[in-house]
């Protein structure tokens, strides 16, 4: 029985394969060891004399230890192979760039807009009720075209480069369906690369206890086709520019609380 949620990421295939054979190996080791313990216990109730198999058992002991060391080494090699493939490569230049920000108790996703550059943010300008949850600086022209979304929308089959940050406490950015997890740590910028393959909706959770709303800190990832992605992005860009240009002062009015 497969307990894992359906996988929608390119690397998830290899991860699931690795996880599944690891789980199978330890499951049978678990059964074998518990069986031996039960045999030992059953013998303690019997009245027969010990078999005198001590020497055989000691030899078997060392043989098994050697075999286990081999298994652990193989687990380490295959596990590190996948880790290196996931982490030791730089993001592709064609990657879709999205910034993920964790805030008690909400995930925000910022797209850099047509200029391809994340604009400046200032902590003093953070004001979610006024529509500026990330503290975008309206005086920075690069900020004006930045799109802030509560849903993460991504095109299928393109490499993604997420930039992770947190405004307040440590959060855990976790997409079970994408086999992705990385903490967002205040004061640090993290990066997470992956390629979604299967269109669909995937829950985004918080995996690091972050306060009383921890269990509610959830969002949605929607993987769509390239055309749908472009259509969505264009609509959001227009909406952002429309709302930013006529009244650019609206964000500074209420922003900048001490």
């Amino acid at each position: 029985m497969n307990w894992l949620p359906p996988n929608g990421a390119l690397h998830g295939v290899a991860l699931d394969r690795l996880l599944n054979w690891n789980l199978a190996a330890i499951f049978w080791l678990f059964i074998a060891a518990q069986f031996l313990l039960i045999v030992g216990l059953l013998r303690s109730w019997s009245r027969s004399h010990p078999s005198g198999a001590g020497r055989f058992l000691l030899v078997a002991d060392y043989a098994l230890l050697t075999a286990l060391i081999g298994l652990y080494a193989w687990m380490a090699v295959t596990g590190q192979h996948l880790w290196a493939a996931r982490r030791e490569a730089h993001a592709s230049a064609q990657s879709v760039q999205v910034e993920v920000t964790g805030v008690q108790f909400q995930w925000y996703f910022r797209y850099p807009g047509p200029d391809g550059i994340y604009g400046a943010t200032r902590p003093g300008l953070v004001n979610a009720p006024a529509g500026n949850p990330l503290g975008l600086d309206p005086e920075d022209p690069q900020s004006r075209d930045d799109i802030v979304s509560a849903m993460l929308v991504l095109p299928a089959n393109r490499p993604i480069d997420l930039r992770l940050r947190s405004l307040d406490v440590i959060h855990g950015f976790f997409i079970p369906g994408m086999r992705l997890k990385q903490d967002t740590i205040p004061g640090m910028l993290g990066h997470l690369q992956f390629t979604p393959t299967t269109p669909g909706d995937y829950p985004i959770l918080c995996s690091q206890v972050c306060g009383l709303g921890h269990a509610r800190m959830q969002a949605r990832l929607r993987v769509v086709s390239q055309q749908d992605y472009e259509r969505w992005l264009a609509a959001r860009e227009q909406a952002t520019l429309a709302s930013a240009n006529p009244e650019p002062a609206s964000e500074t009015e209420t922003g900048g609380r001490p």
Partner: protein
Amino acid sequence: MNLHSPTAPESRSFVRSRVFTTDHRALAILYLLLGLAAVILGTLLSLVMRIHRVWPGFAFPFYGVPRPEDYLALVTMHGTLMIFFVLTVVPQSAFPNLVLPAQIGATRMAFPRLNAAAFWITAASLLVLLAAFFVPQGAPISGWTSYPPLSALAAAGPGQGAGMDLWLVSITLFCVASVAASINFLVTIVTGRCTGMTWTRLPLTVWSWLVSSALTVLAFSVLLAAAVLLLADRHFGTSFFLPGGEVINGLAIRPGSGSPMLWLHLFWFFGHPEVYISILPGMGLATSILANFTRRPVPAYRLMVAATLLIGLLGLGVWGHHIFVTGMNPYAGTAFGLTTMAIAVPSSAEVLTWLVMVLRDRAQPVTPLLFTLGFISFFIAGGLTGPVLAQPALDSYLHNTFFVVAHFHLVMAMAGVFSVFAGIYYWYPLLTGRRMNEKLGHAHFWISLIAAYGTFFPMHFAGLAGEPRHYAQLSGPVTSFPSLIPVERGITSSALLLAAAQILFLINLVWSARRGALAGENPWRATTLEWAPFSHPMVMGQPYAYCAGNNPDFLPQWQETSPRPDFDSSVTGKFPHDRGAKEC
């Protein structure tokens, strides 16, 4: 240092002799009572959590329906009570006070007053911790790991004000007490061994306490420093753990130049050795009990000593596997993954040796042996998921899910608690002169074993399904785990049964003190010195000189003359363990 002179008999009041005392056996009883209080409270807290998860609307008497912050406060206090005040206090403070001096042939500890002070500081630490329930906003909500900035800023959530301060003061006190107690144990082991008690004649429990005490001094010192730094961040305007640009609750926080990563490293440099501090004594005890009840020597004494030392050494270099998902340098992930995988090797060597001991001879199925088998069973069940979680690639899915909750509750909590039960059933005659009731003990064992597997094994599946820890509710705005509801209900029912089974233990504990079968001298026919009828200044041989099928089938370490010369190492000049094993 002379730790062998008999103590002068004094006529003192009950309070002076049993409470404000420097006698290590009396302190052991105080530590056991403290651990008992903590485990009862910690268990009740976990039951509230379990019930709330599956019946979210249930209103508890005198408590009501837990709010989300209440649930997290329960998590924090459950973890803190169990890890510090149960799994550290009992195996690493109560048991050594009970038998360590006797096992090495000493009549007292090296620093009796320091030892007594350690207990009282531990007791103060517990009271300060419990006080957190009663301050405004209640107990802290950041979990037993207390990651900043959540733990550094009172504005970050309810309980993060006065409650968090009390938590930090409590941990600070606990660190001071643990380091003091461990320095006493280390000096006692090094200087207090009686004539003839060479390093290769030490019982494996003593080797375990030697390593776990060294780990305690190193690890708890670091936690002490971290706790003091965090208190300074909270109250003295420093920013060891606070970066700049923080916005909490819509308020910009004073700029800092620190990093929460510093806390993560300091905390887990303590946190991982802590696992071995609480489990190594149980490992040594398991080997001793298996030898005792199979009536055969430990087949690979020196291998077991080497494995214990290696686990202690490697245990200091694996802390990074708790923070694989922080986005740290991938090469650090590789390094910590490999050291973690390496520690599976000495652990496996110990497990395989136990299996050989179990299979080689017919064991006497008494309660201490059953709990030792249970300890081994859980150690294997929880240990096997270790090499899976040691792979950073797989941990990036499993981290902080219920898979990890299952892992550490099996390998640390259940294995730890079962070895504590083994120790209590085994050493109970030393405390009372009576044995605990076997029928109650067997019932306690079997119900606990089945209920513990029923509680913690299904958590693996919840974790594989992606369910994170610290969630007060199964369903959130976007996700819900409907397929897990039956699993979760089963876990809760099992947990209730597991807790109920402990009533059998409590009844047995109290009933046997007055009504239990009289133990007599050396009731388990054991060889180690805690069972000697008198404090003996001289040791002649190996700690596990059992010889199944012969009469007598054991030679205690305190017996000077042997009817079987092959036991006598002073004649052969060889290592007696190997010789004993061959001759038997």
